[in-house]
């Protein structure tokens, strides 16, 4: 049901520019105003969110340790430096592996129950599907974003040419097919199918989980449509996009409506981003269970709001139990406490 809501919602979104540009000819609004506003919203509110996170302190050093600690005897007990870092550099490596290789998802397992002739069995098996397809999706997305720089820079930097060459190396069709275009759709469809097929994940999925998937899928498909089927006028589009980044906005003639649909959907994605779970992108860098070394036994961590709380004092304790302590032969700091209160 939640998935259906999201799908319908994305359809409606597609219709807006279709009529807005196709019928009402609001090219300036859809081609200039909206994308510029979207970039502004994305930028400002993402920073606002990050700063808001940052304004809460990290009172305690709480890394999740995923391996052997740094021992007093590192030769006898070899530290697992990447999973249980004890200094800044090791923590950076842990974070790089986490952000670039999704290391945690790599260790994912799936749990299953079996009734065997030897009794019940709880089995754990490695489950790397989510890791694989998540990686596929995210890297495809990254490559696609970087490839789009060809529309925003002149001259085009070498790495964009390099990406374009590698991405299209299969030389299928004209214009050549980009592998990332296919793989992002495959990745998205897997993530969607998994959400729908796994009863547990379906149960926890909200509209806000399906919506970004459908939205990004619609962005990808509209882009694919533009490139391979509508065959839009790339030079006119570059004139428009360069107009945006040179602050000389201008709408050239002859741009297909599919372009406006694509740009509209991207703008929605940018504006939705800072208010949604998509903020996991900056958020992963700020997770205290991952971005801190496990060094609290030998390195002081300051809690800015450490409250002034004292333990119940030994003096009060001795007063409370003095007579019994004296009788049991336990030493007393204050011999007067040996007397029962009524005697004193």
């Amino acid at each position: 049901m939640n998935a259906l809501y999201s799908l319908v919602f994305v359809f409606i979104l597609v219709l807006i520019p279709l009529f807005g540009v196709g019928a009402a000819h609001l090219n300036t609004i859809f081609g200039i105003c909206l994308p510029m506003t979207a970039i502004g919203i994305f930028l400002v509110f993402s920073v606002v969110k990050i700063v808001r996170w940052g304004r809460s302190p990290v009172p305690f050093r709480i890394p999740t340790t995923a391996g052997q600690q740094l021992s007093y005897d590192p030769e006898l007990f070899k530290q697992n430096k990447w999973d249980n870092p004890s200094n800044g550099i090791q923590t950076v490596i842990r974070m790089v592996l986490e952000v670039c290789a999704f290391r945690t998802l790599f260790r994912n397992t799936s749990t299953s129950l079996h009734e065997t002739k030897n009794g019940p069995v709880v089995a754990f098996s490695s489950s790397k599907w989510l890791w694989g397809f998540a990686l596929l999706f995210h890297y495809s997305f990254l490559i696609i974003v970087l490839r789009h720089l060809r529309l925003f820079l002149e001259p085009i930097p070498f790495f964009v040419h390099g990406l374009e060459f590698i991405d299209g190396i299969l030389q299928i069709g004209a214009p050549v097919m980009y592998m990332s275009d296919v793989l992002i759709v495959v990745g998205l469809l897997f993530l969607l199918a998994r959400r729908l097929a796994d009863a547990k994940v379906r149960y926890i999925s909200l509209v806000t989980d399906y919506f970004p998937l459908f939205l990004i899928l619609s962005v990808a498909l509209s882009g694919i449509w533009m490139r391979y089927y509508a065959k839009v006028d790339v030079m006119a589009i570059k004139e428009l996009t360069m107009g945006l980044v040179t602050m000389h906005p201008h709408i050239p003639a002859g741009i297909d409506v599919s372009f406006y649909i694509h740009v509209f959907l991207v703008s929605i994605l940018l504006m939705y981003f800072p208010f949604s779970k998509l903020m996991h992108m900056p958020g992963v860098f700020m997770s205290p269970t991952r971005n801190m070394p496990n060094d609290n036994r030998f390195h002081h961590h300051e809690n800015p709001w450490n409250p002034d709380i004292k333990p119940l004092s030994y003096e009060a304790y001795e007063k409370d139990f003095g007579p019994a302590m004296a009788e049991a032969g336990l030493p007393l700091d204050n011999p007067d406490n040996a007397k029962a209160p009524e005697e004193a």
Partner: protein
Amino acid sequence: MHYGGKIIIGIVIFVGLLLSPFVFNVGKAYKQPELKLPANEKKCVESLEFMRTKHMQLLNEWRDWALRDGKRVYVNHEGKEFEISLQNTCMKCHKSKADFCDKCHNDAGVSPYCWDCHIQPEGLK
């Protein structure tokens, strides 16, 4: 801000990357490249609009027809016939890759593999 330095560095990188296209283009203006059109021919094999957006499709089909199917004659939308040949048809008018093809392809960041097999019209340097 607790660990504010690191957060600010992160934000600067994030904002910097996002705004880099704006920064690199400060003070620049962009115009579509102007092509050097053939002097003695006003009409291409298809209309201007068709050629602008779909030439790659046409060239791809020409290659397949000529090399795989042995079909050497192309009839355009107006019924006019052309020989299917990059060398004898296209390059007859478009005499310079640098002045024609590369103009847009450079800006669009595409490098078609035509010249893996064909010799460009101005010859090899």
